[in-house]
């Protein structure tokens, strides 16, 4: 049975089943994401244990202050996302839209900083491939570090871009009054995705930026 103002898809018996199924579906999807990033983390663990000095030396070339600032930006975006979810749960349209837009804004700042960092790496000739140059004894292993740096932060950034798109869509829907106290699950599961992307960065930051700093 559907209440006025939101739809229950035909395959579901009621709104509760639809909500529970959607939420479980997002969590299962996040499990697949954990495994996908897990392969990269496994690669990282193996090579860092094999070449600790090279990894420490390479990590020095990353700007830890910028990385830390970006971490705070992303954590802030998780706060605004949680606030958006909370507003949605209370049926507060303005709070929902404001929260989503703030999250998008902070996420965009993060991506902008990453773009700047990537451009800087390009100038420093630290992009792996035929033009890679590393002044230090462990050039090939440092290149391995940067391969992982670009692969891991690149995949993370791709997820953020997708996340911004998803949140933008949700913001438009929220602004049009599609959500209510009775129906707001898409915001919640959008939030789950965004928080997951934040968690990945919570691990990436110390593992990539803070090696060998003492």
């Amino acid at each position, binding site marked *: 049975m559907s209440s006025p103002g939101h739809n229950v898809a035909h395959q579901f018996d009621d709104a509760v089943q639809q909500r529970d199924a959607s939420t479980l579906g997002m969590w299962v999807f996040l499990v697949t994401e954990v495994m996908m990033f897990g392969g990269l983390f496994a690669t990282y663990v*193996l090579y860092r244990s*094999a070449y600790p000095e090279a990894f420490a030396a390479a990590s020095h070339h990353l700007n830890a202050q910028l990385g830390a600032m970006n971490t705070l930006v992303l954590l802030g975006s998780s706060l605004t996302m949680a606030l958006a979810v909370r507003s949605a749960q209370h049926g507060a349209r303005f709070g929902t839209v404001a929260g989503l837009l703030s999250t998008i804004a902070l996420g965009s700042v993060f991506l902008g900083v990453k773009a700047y960092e990537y451009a800087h790496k390009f100038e420093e000739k630290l992009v792996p491939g035929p033009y890679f140059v590393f002044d230090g004894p462990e050039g090939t292993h440092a290149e391995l570090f940067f391969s992982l740096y670009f692969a891991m932060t690149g995949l993370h950034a791709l997820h953020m871009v997708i996340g911004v798109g998803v949140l933008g869509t949700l913001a438009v829907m929220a602004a049009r009054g599609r959500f209510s106290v009775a129906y707001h699950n898409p915001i919640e599961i959008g939030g789950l995705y965004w928080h997951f992307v934040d968690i990945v960065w919570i691990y990436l930051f110390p593992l990539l930026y803070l090696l060998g700093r003492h």
Partner: protein
Amino acid sequence: MDDARPAQRKLVNAMEPGASRTNYLNADYGLKSWLLTRDHKRIAILYLISITLMFLLGSFFAVLIRLELLTPHGDLVQGDTYNKLFTMHGIVMVFFFLVPSIPAVFGNFLLPLMIGARDLAFPRLNLLSWYVYVVGAAFTLWAVITGGVDTGWTFYTPYSTTASHTNVLTTAIGIFITGFSSILTGLNFIVTIHQMRAPGLTWFRLPLFVWAHYATSLIMILGTPVIAITIFLVGIERAFQLGIFDPALGGDPILFQHLFWFYSHPAVYIMILPSMGVVSEIITCFARKRIFGYEFIAVSSLAIALFGFLVWGHHMFTSTQSVYAALIFSVLSFAVAIPSAVKVFNWTATLYRGSISFEAPMLFALGFIGLFTIGGLTGLFLAALGLDVHVHDTYFVVAHFHYIMVGGALMGYLGAVHFWWPKMTGRMYSEWAARVSAVLVFVGFNLTFFPQFVLGYLGMPRRYHVYPDEFQVLNVMSTTGASILGVGYLVPLCYLIWSLWRGPIASANPWRAAGLEWKVASPPPTENFAQTPIVTEEAYSYPVREAEVV
């Protein structure tokens, strides 16, 4: 039985009990209604067509391989071409036929019916999964047409990332994309089974087919992402000359193998578990007896899924993997055989003192039990470290996995096709033709692959297009068997397609089988059930009275 009558009338005019005027096939017409469908049953048919085409492609490569191996010399194709043949045979058969086969066709079609639901939890994701599959297949086909790949389906580095001059990148992209089809299917199944069972349908009342697909879905979502990221790394290494797996640049090729096999071993359980679910359904129906040890079979599916993730290193016994890791993997590989054995014992006990009849689905299911047992036992040979060192990379391994994949999984798939064909199409096929093809498949299969056990033990390596003269007799036997096997696969194509036009109309329950899917018309209406059924019985409550159409 009314199904024996020749078809004299068109489906839409059939007025017999069990036939419906409007069903999912004729509910809407036109290409758009199929390509934009959200009906799980139509999506299953879309998959059926796609994977059949890919199966034919994979078989084409197999034909060339067996023809080349008729003679000891490399006289049909050159070595480089032969490398491409076995590579593409493996890739197409594994990723584009076996992995999707039963889940994408029969899982999609039957799961909602078996649990009393109107559709899967996410019908649009379901359709998306088919499109993702098609796009992935298109990339791979493009790679095949424009020169092929020669790395082996296992893509070992650094050959695949550095030395190979074939279409590795395109193929890698194709497999990467198709992996997401698997992930979406698995996700859909898990949520559906958890959230959308009919009232009264507790976990231990579910058909074992559902348990099998649940376990398969767990593997799909936990394993496939790892091969996705691994293929991704291979792709960027190749495209940008990075050094992730290349030892010349400090990379570890064994890391690739760990990452690859972390998925690819559980993948073999993705390929076999659904067949086991099919066999449970068929055996119990044609023995007219409740399955023996229901809970054990159900839980053993989960056990296989879990243990399957702990054994991948047994593919790496002859790599530079450490002996201690090899020991752990060897012991665990012995353990993973136990839940499979439990199933075989329970199926056998179900047959004991059953009222057995030998319709075509039953022939395929019985064939599965015998051939899977042989394949599984030879797996234990391979799990033993010392023996594996002797037969690794020989035809012993090739025979082992073909016994499981072809003698097991493919037989299960054919059994499923024959068992649920009347449900899906509303038509019966020619029973005698089906039995003939089952026998052809069984005989042809054994003649093809049993000699390969001997060849492998005698030392014939795999992936070589030439071999010593003394191995020719066994190879000729194998190719002869393959010819018979090929006929055995082509015959069903003929009589099944024929049945669509001229087959007798099928009733709702031509096999007098238990299960919710047999309570709806053949073919089912789009919405499956007019009213959500309420389940009060255990599964497999045989004998089944004349079924009522719900």
